[in-house]
């Protein structure tokens, strides 16, 4: 087990190293932060001084090495644009993204799994056909377009939900959350829904195909032959089995949600890390982009690891060998 963890950590470290180097070099090639940040009235001297201040006057290799050295000290650098420690900047925005992503995941699971199990069990009912069509439509409408339509519908026509922004926040665990007050919650509904639609579709399909697959397994026929109730058949035999693939996908999906938040956050002006990333790419704020990347990679590695562990916990075939 320890060996396994160490190996995974090693792999992740390599992954992070490669990714950060690629982006570091890439952003160096593409844009010059001095050109972006310098005022129009900067003289050459000012530019040189700015380059010195930003540390971008040194050779690329030196910059990268000093960057790595700083990271090992927990210093991810300072944003060119905000002139603040990047880590602080990202951590400050992280709760906004996390709460909306988790909210979306929650909605997705709560709606998607029962819908999928129902569809899987009742393949011929009209409700199933409708669900199946709707999930396909849900898949087909691009995320950003959904967001636009949601704003049109709920914020402009019906006037029931705010169109954008984060609303009031509550301070908890030294972070700001919209989740814990009514105004914040009302701001969160649309972005969360925007993210959740895809998740609902995905979870419905997963649960449906899982159900259909499991329904025809020998053990399901045998369990029915034992004479146990249908309710128990579904709760214990079916759901326990379809949860295994669902957990795996859900883990990966959480990552995807955080990534897709980039789009949703843009549409809804939700001040999370996705929007920070996009803004930083546009303004070639290299420290933010690289740090974001490293943190996100670490997060995915963690999520994948947790998924592996959960997978083992849910599937005794892996747990006991």
């Amino acid at each position, binding site marked *: 087990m320890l060996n396994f963890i160490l190996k995974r950590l090693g792999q992740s470290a390599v992954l992070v190293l490669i990714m950060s180097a690629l982006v570091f070099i890439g952003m160096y090639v*593409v*844009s*010059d932060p*001095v*050109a*972006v940040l*310098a*005022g*129009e*009235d*900067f*003289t*050459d*001297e*000012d*530019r040189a*001084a*700015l380059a010195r*201040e930003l540390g971008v006057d040194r050779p690329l290799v030196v910059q990268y090495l000093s960057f790595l050295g700083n990271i090992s000290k927990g210093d991810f650098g*300072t944003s060119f*644009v*905000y*002139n*603040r420690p990047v880590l602080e*900047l990202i951590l*400050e*925005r992280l709760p906004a993204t996390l709460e909306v992503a988790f909210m979306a995941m929650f909605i997705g699971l709560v709606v998607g799994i029962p819908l999928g199990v129902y569809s899987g069990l009742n393949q011929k009912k009209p409700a199933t056909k409708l669900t199946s069509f709707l999930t396909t439509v849900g898949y087909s409408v691009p995320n950003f377009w959904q967001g*636009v339509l949601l*704003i049109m519908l709920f*914020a*402009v*026509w019906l*006037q029931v939900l*705010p*169109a*954008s*922004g*984060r609303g009031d926040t509550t301070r908890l665990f030294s972070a700001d959350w919209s989740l814990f007050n009514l105004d914040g919650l009302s701001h969160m509904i649309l972005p969360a829904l925007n993210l959740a639609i895809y998740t609902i579709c995905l979870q419905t399909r997963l649960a449906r195909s899982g159900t259909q697959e499991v329904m025809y397994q020998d053990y399901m026929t045998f369990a029915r032959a034992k004479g146990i109730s249908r309710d128990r058949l579904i709760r214990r035999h079916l759901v326990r089995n379809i949860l295994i693939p669902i957990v795996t996908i859900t883990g990966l999906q959480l990552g995807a949600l955080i990534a897709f938040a980039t789009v949703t956050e*843009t*549409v*809804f*002006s939700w*001040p999370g890390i996705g*929007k920070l990333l996009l803004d930083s*790419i*546009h*303004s*070639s704020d290299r420290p933010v982009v690289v740090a974001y990347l490293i943190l996100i990679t670490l997060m995915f590695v963690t999520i994948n690891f947790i998924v592996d562990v959960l997978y083992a916990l849910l599937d005794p075939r892996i747990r006991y060998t």
Partner: protein
Amino acid sequence: MKQTISALAMAAMLALPGVAGADTLRMGFASAPRTIDPYPFGGAPTASLKEHVFEALVASDDSPLLASGWEWTSPTTLDVTLRDGITFHNGEPLTARDVVYSACRMMHLIDGKRNLLTSSMGPIADVVAVDDHTVRFEMKAPYPLWVQKMKFLSILSASGAELPDGPIQYDSEGDCGVTAYPTIAEFESGEAAIGTGPYKLARFDKSGEADLVRNDSYWGEAPEWDEVEIRTIGNAGARLAGLLAGDFDLIENPTTEDLPGLTASDELTYTAVPSWRSIFLVLDVDPEGAGGVSAPDGSAPLADPRVRQAMSMAINRQAIADRLFGGEATVANQFSPKYRTGAPELPELEYNPEKAKELLAEAGYGDGFTIDFYAPSDRYANGARVAQAVTQYLSRIGITVNLKTQPWSVFAGQRSAGELGVFLYGWGHPQGPAQMISFAFASRDKDLGLGASNYSNYQSDAFDAAMQAWAVETDEAKANAHIADAMKVVVEDLPGIPLYYQHTIWAHRADLEVNGRPDERTSATTVSRK
């Protein structure tokens, strides 16, 4: 659809009557103020917020603000007299010592990071508190532009820092005997955000939110609002939706497309003010050739003034202003806004595609030539569309145009590297009508601060002579005459092609009156109830 939008607005009003306190002004910014510390950053949103709390000696329209007046006692000495009876938010009176302290703070690098005026104050040799109400600026060389630059020196109360009693000795390192300056965090928490402005900071949040409250003891006209809430919504559609939904009383920069709907609405309207930002094309006139520009015979077409003239004539500026900006842009006839104080009066630039074709043929490019035309996609209002319209017009006189729009981050780097032969660009003119031309078209002169961004590689003796004279001229009338001379030369030579001047637009409730500022700042002081 006009009916739709007004109906929507109506619904918004009915649904949410008089949200929040009636004496609260809620403003939706287009981009986030970065901080409330007035020194590190410029930029419109940051300045907009800061100017509610902090004031400078000179107002944005060049008139005295905290100063009651100034006098050049020698070409290198400027004496500024402070207005009487001004107090900071904490009750301390404003004195010359605070001005010296503020200058010190401006020169003090935090974490090695430069501040707004760090380089602009290079020519300042000393700042001296002559008496409580007089500050003297000593220059190393004549530096008439300092009067304009003083707009950006926000005045802080020296009581915010740890420093010994008695006079402060200015130095260009910003040490000045100060033991500890307040940190950015202290500014943002409100603790150190103590200025003389009409509003006091109640809360600041980095996501672009700020709450302000009225400064009851403000020295000037009493502030209109009890409270001001600033929120930032980057997406224009979402921002307007916020206004429609009643979340805001006023928003910045509605898109041009939304203006007709606003006009039709009874509940909402908009105010547009010609701004000091001028938009133009930059042409690399280097006879050796320019990036992305190629002619069949291998020559450098942009080096020929007739070609530049032809390009200028090909563009229907009025159509751009009308069609892409719904009339909310002013056609340019020079590089500085023609309505900027001190700008010369010049004739309109001609639109004549037929003549343009003739000029091209005359210059030997009857069969056209090819240019790569670069434009930043995320920098100027409607920038990408303007670039496409320009492309259309240039195409029609036979120039093959490859339009390349890029994010500012990419564009800026290539521009600085001198790789772009033709590009769309913009300059604001808060420091007077010569601000752009002195940087963009003058030959490089480090001492006088000329020609730092001459991407046109333009050189004209007549123009340089006028600019060099202007740079040291402390007499306003004489300085303006130099500007007029210089401007005439460049408008004739066209190392760039002026297009239009942007208007700054605010969409707001119809019962508000907005007396908008030309320097693109959004301020609660400009908003009043009808």
